[in-house]
C-alpha cells in the first residue's frame, strides 16, 4: 500500500488538501488498522488529495485530558500544534471521534485552528457529491444497527451522517433502545479504555451489546476504534455471532475496494 507522507510531499513542494490523522488506535490496534486501510482505499478511490504525518504523528493527549492530566494534555497539544502549523495544515480527516473532538474543539484555544472532519461525514459527503457510489452491494437488505460514539454524537451532534451512509448501502437500519442523543456509552470513554472498570454488577459494553442483540441485527456498525473494541468484546462474551464493523470497512466491503 502506498501512503503519502506529509513531510515528503512538502519537500517536493506539494500541498495536499487534507491531513489524514491516523490516531494511536488506527496506527497500532489490529482492528482499527483495518479501518485505516479501508479509509485510505476510499480516499484513493475518490481521488482525495491527502497525506499522513507518519512518524511525526503523536497522541492528541485526549486520554490524558479525560483522566484529569491537563499538563500532559497541553504538552502533547502544543507540540502537535507546532508540527501541524509548521506544515500549514488546514483540513484534517480523523477516523477516531476522540481525536476528532480534541483537534476540533480543544486545540483552537492553544493555537491550533483546523477544519476537522470525521470519516463518516466525509464518506457521506463523497457519496452525495458522487465521488464514490455505494448503492446495492454486500449490505443490501441486511439488518444493521448503529452504535453512536459519545464523542461524535452527544459531544459534537453528529448523528445523521453515519446513518445516511448505512441507508445508502440499501441496508435496513434498526435503532437500539437508546440511540442518538440518548445513546448508551460503550464504556471506553473518559480514559476507561485504559483501566479496569470500577466495581459494579455488569460491564457497560455488555449492557450495550445486549441492547444491540435485542434489535436482531447481525451487524453492528461503529465509527470509533474504542467502541469497536468494546462492542466486539461484548459480543464475544455474549457468544453472539454478530459482526461489529466500522462504516469505512462497510464501504470497502460493499464496493469491493
Amino acid at each position, binding site marked *: 500500500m502506498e501512503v503519502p507522507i506529509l513531510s515528503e510531499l512538502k519537500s517536493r513542494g506539494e500541498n495536499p488538501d487534507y491531513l489524514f490523522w491516523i490516531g494511536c488506535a488506527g496506527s497500532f490496534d489490529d482492528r482499527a488498522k483495518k479501518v485505516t486501510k479501508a479509509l485510505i482505499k476510499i480516499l484513493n478511490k475518490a481521488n482525495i488529495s491527502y497525506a499522513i504525518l507518519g512518524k511525526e504523528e503523536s497522541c492528541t493527549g485526549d486520554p490524558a485530558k479525560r483522566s484529569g492530566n491537563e499538563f500532559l494534555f497541553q*504538552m502533547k497539544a502544543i507540540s502537535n500544534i507546532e508540527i501541524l502549523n509548521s506544515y500549514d495544515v488546514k483540513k484534517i480527516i480523523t477516523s477516531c471521534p476522540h481525536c476528532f473532538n480534541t483537534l476540533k474543539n480543544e486545540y483552537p484555544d492553544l493555537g491550533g485552528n483546523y477544519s476537522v472532519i470525521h470519516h463518516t461525514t466525509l464518506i457521506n459527503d463523497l457519496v452525495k457529491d458522487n465521488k464514490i457510489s455505494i448503492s446495492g452491494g454486500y449490505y443490501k437488505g441486511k439488518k444493521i444497527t448503529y452504535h453512536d460514539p459519545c464523542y461524535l454524537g452527544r459531544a459534537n451532534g453528529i448523528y445523521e451522517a453515519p446513518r445516511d451512509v448505512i441507508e445508502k448501502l440499501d441496508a435496513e437500519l434498526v435503532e437500539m433502545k437508546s440511540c442518538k442523543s440518548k445513546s448508551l456509552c460503550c464504556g471506553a470513554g473518559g480514559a476507561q479504555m485504559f483501566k479496569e472498570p470500577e*466495581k459494579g454488577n455488569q460491564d457497560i459494553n455488555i449492557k450495550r451489546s445486549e441492547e444491540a442483540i435485542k434489535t436482531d441485527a447481525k451487524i453492528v456498525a461503529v465509527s470509533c476504534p474504542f467502541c469497536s473494541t468494546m462492542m466486539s468484546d461484548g459480543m464475544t462474551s455474549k457468544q453472539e455471532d454478530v459482526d461489529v464493523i466500522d462504516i469505512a470497512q462497510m464501504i470497502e466491503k460493499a464496493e469491493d475496494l
Partner: protein
Amino acid sequence: MINILPNIIFSILLVTSVGFFIYNIKKLITVIKLGKPVDRTDNPKKRLYNMIRIALGQSKMVTKPISGFLHVIVYVGFIIINIELLEILIDGITGSHRFFSKYFNPSLYNFLIASFEILALLVLISVILFWTRRNIVKIKRFLSNEMKGWPKFDADNILYFEIVLMLLFLSMNATDLILQERNFEGYYKAGSFPVSSLMVPLFDSFTTSTVYVFERVFWWSHIIGIFLFLNYLYYSKHLHILLAFPNTYFANLESKGKFGILESVKNEVLLMFYPEKASESNSEIDKFGASDVLDLNWVQLMNAYSCTECGRCTSECPANLTGKKLSPRKIMMDTRDRLEKVSKNITINKGKFVDDGDRLLDNYISKEELWACTSCNACVEACPINIDPLSIIMDMRQFLIMEESSAHPDLNNMMNNIENNGAPWPYNQQDRELWIQEA
C-alpha cells in the same frame, strides 16, 4: 380601626414573608458568587433563546412523556393561578372582595375564575399522580441511596403542600359561592365555579355565619400557605422553579465534547515551550482542579442549587446503570450540601471561610465515584435545565492527578506511555507507519 385590622395583619404578613424570602435569595446569590469566575456573557441572544425554550418552554421535560406532561400541567397551573394570587393580595391589603370583578368584563372574569378552577383540579390530579409515582409505583430513580432521608421528605412535603393549597383554594371558592348565593353582605355575585360548585354540598348545610367563618379560614389558610411555600423554597430542592431560568441562561454553549483549557496550566506549559508567550503576572500558581466547593466556578455552584433531584441524569448514566457507585445526581447534591456547610461557616466567621477539616473530595464524593465516569455526557444531555455534573467530575479528577498524584493505577501506565512514546500503549513512535507495510 377594627375594620382594617385584618388588612394590617395581612400587610405585615406579606411584608415579612416577602422580606424574609428576599433576605434568603440575597444570601443565596452571595454564596453562588463565592465560586471562581467564568465568563458566560457571550452570545446573549442564544442564551435568551435557550432560557425561553428550555426553562420557560420546558422543552427538555417532555423527553419523558408522562412525567413531562404532568410537570407541564403543574407548571402552567402555577403560573396562571398566580394571576388569581394577585387579586388575593389586593383583596388582602385593601379589604376588597374579588377586586378584579369590578374592573373586568363579567364574562372575562367568569372565564378567568373558571380556568383557575379547572387548572387547580388538573394540578391536584397531577400532584396526586406524582405522589403515587414516588410512593406507590416506586420508580427506580426515586429510590437510590442519595434519596433517603431529607431528600425524600422534601420531595413529599412539596407535594403535600400543593395538595393542601389546591384544596384550600377550591374550598375557599365553594364557600364563597354559597355566600354569594345567600346574598351575604359584601359577597356580590362574581365568578364562575365549575369545580368548586361540586363541593357546595359539603358546606351547604351550615348556617350562613358558619359558612362565612369557613370561607375566612380557607382564605387565610390559603394565602398563609402560599407565604410559607415561598419561604420553604430556599430550604428545598424546589428552588429550581426560580433557578431554572438563570441556570439555562448561563449554561455552556460550546460543544459538549469541549472541555475548557485550564489557563493556569497553559501558562506553565507555555513557560516550558515559549517563555516569551507566557504571562508574567501569573507567577503565583493556582491550585489545579477542585477538591472543595470553593474551587468550582459560580455556574457549577448555581447548578448545585438548581438541581431538583429528579434523577434523570442518574437514570441515563452508563456507570450507574451497571451498578457502579457514581450517580451524577449525587455529585450535584453533595456539592450543594457541602456548599451549605461552607456558607454557614462563612456566616459564623464573619465573611471569611475558616478551614473546618472537611472537603468535597473523599468526605462527600469518593475517588471510586470519580473514576467510574466515562465522560459520555449522558447526564448533561438528560438534565431538563442543563446542569453539568460532568464538569465537576472532571475538575475533581484534575485535582486527583495534578495535586494529589493519585491517579487510578491503571491510568499511570497509559499516561507514562503518552509522555514517553506518544501513544497510550507501549508502542514506539517510530513504528507508527508499520501498518502500511502489513498486508
